[in-house]
């Protein structure tokens, strides 16, 4: 107990222990040390994301086109709403945490326990929501083509609406090969699952649907419109429409599709149907690292919650542990505020 709670009967004994530099107890000061170093870790990640984004500024995916799902609203594009909901959940769990700290100052055990419980629930809902967001991102929605040169091509109809590969792929064309499974291999050989459609099926389907066009990764703006080749004359506009990717003419689309090498469905660490692979890598890494923090925060909260129920802090006559875990929890919320801005808004 001596290491977690400092009592002030040590006046005059500066080097004798029990002293509180900066007016904060040992445990709280150490929590601040941890928070500063962790804040720098997260800023390192976010700035690295910024570096890669600036490096590929003209082709970076638009968040509005990537995160468009909302539960029970399948097929309805709803950018921002779901992540806004997640943000509110996390802010609210921060509020219940600070209410628990406040109740702790007044030594109200049952109130602390109640607010801690709400905080834990909020944290669990957030982690669950994050998992759902990951599932949608990994699964993908439309599918895309990767060319030999490594760029990603998506499909749109004559009005510029994003079209999924499954809507037009010609399945009468035979697939080039079967997936190699462990049971069919000569030795311990297998491969990861093949895309639902082969490149030939997509190319044949594209040929059968003359109204289909290709959308490239390049964001259509004043600078890129000057150098882009085969730009569709009516569907692109940077003065009136909001930020969007360049749509090609039918002739140029056919030319680009001839270079197709792979069909991509969804996103993983190697491929990303929404565009730059680095976008997916950073998304998984940063939101994953944040999600890991939320998860450990929930675990720590549960431990403190049990201690509150057991009356440990009543016996200590101080709820400072709740304050310390509260600092960590608010920090996790703080990081999310920045992740939200840099992944979804900016």
């Amino acid at each position: 107990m001596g290491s977690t709670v400092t009592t002030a009967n040590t006046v005059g004994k500066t080097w004798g222990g029990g002293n509180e530099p900066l007016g904060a107890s040992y445990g709280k000061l150490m929590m601040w040390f941890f928070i500063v170093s962790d804040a720098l870790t997260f800023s390192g990640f976010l700035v690295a994301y910024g570096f890669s984004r600036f490096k590929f500024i003209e082709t970076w995916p638009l968040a509005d086109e990537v995160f468009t799902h909302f539960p029970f609203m399948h097929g309805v594009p709803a950018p921002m709403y779901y992540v806004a909901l997640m943000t509110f959940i996390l802010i609210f769990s921060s509020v219940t945490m600070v209410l628990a700290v406040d109740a702790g100052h007044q030594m109200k055990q049952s109130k602390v326990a109640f607010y801690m419980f709400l905080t834990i629930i909020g944290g669990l809902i957030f982690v669950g929501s994050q998992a759902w967001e990951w599932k949608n991102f990994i699964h993908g929605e439309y599918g895309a083509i990767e060319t030999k040169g490594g760029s990603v091509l998506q499909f749109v109809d004559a009005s510029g609406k994003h079209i999924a590969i499954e809507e037009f792929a010609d399945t009468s064309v035979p697939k080039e090969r079967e997936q190699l499974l462990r049971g069919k291999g000569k030795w311990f050989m297998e491969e990861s699952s093949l895309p639902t459609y082969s490149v030939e099926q997509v190319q044949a389907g594209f040929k059968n649907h003359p109204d289909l066009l290709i959308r490239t990764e390049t964001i259509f703006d004043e600078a890129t419109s000057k150098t882009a080749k085969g730009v569709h004359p009516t569907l692109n506009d940077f003065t009136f429409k909001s930020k969007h990717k360049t749509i090609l003419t039918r002739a140029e689309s056919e030319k680009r599709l001839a270079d197709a090498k792979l069909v991509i469905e969804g996103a993983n660490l190697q491929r990303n149907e929404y565009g730059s692979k680095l976008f997916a890598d950073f998304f998984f890494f940063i939101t994953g690292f944040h999600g890991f923090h939320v998860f450990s925060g929930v675990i720590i909260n549960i431990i403190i919650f049990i201690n509150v129920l057991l009356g440990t802090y009543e016996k200590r006559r101080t709820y400072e542990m709740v304050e310390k875990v509260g600092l960590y929890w608010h920090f996790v919320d703080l990081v999310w505020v920045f992740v939200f801005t840099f992944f979804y808004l900016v």
Partner: protein
Amino acid sequence: MSHEHVSNTKRIWLVFGILSVVTTVEVILGIMKPQALHMTNMLGMNLLNWIFIILTIFKAYYIVWAFMHMEGETPALRRAVVWTVIFLILYLAFILLTEGHYVFGVFRDATIKWNF
């Protein structure tokens, strides 16, 4: 320590209100993306992004000051934490974003295409 042990539930809910309103404004702007803000650039970034970043820092201030109770800590602790973090982040962001922009220029103007 200036932790006067009085309940400040009122202030907590007030801060929650502020954070909610700011987040709502961010979401509305993020969905509407007003053309005038989105397509006007200032210091290498469009005005809408500047608004988002300023609002984020505004929210961060309230989280750290009210929720993490930084306002009740001694000025020395406050400065040690806040100034260190702000200085190092600005430094890192400046260096890496400048470098990223430079690499972008190298790719764009090079005779060899990297992605086609």
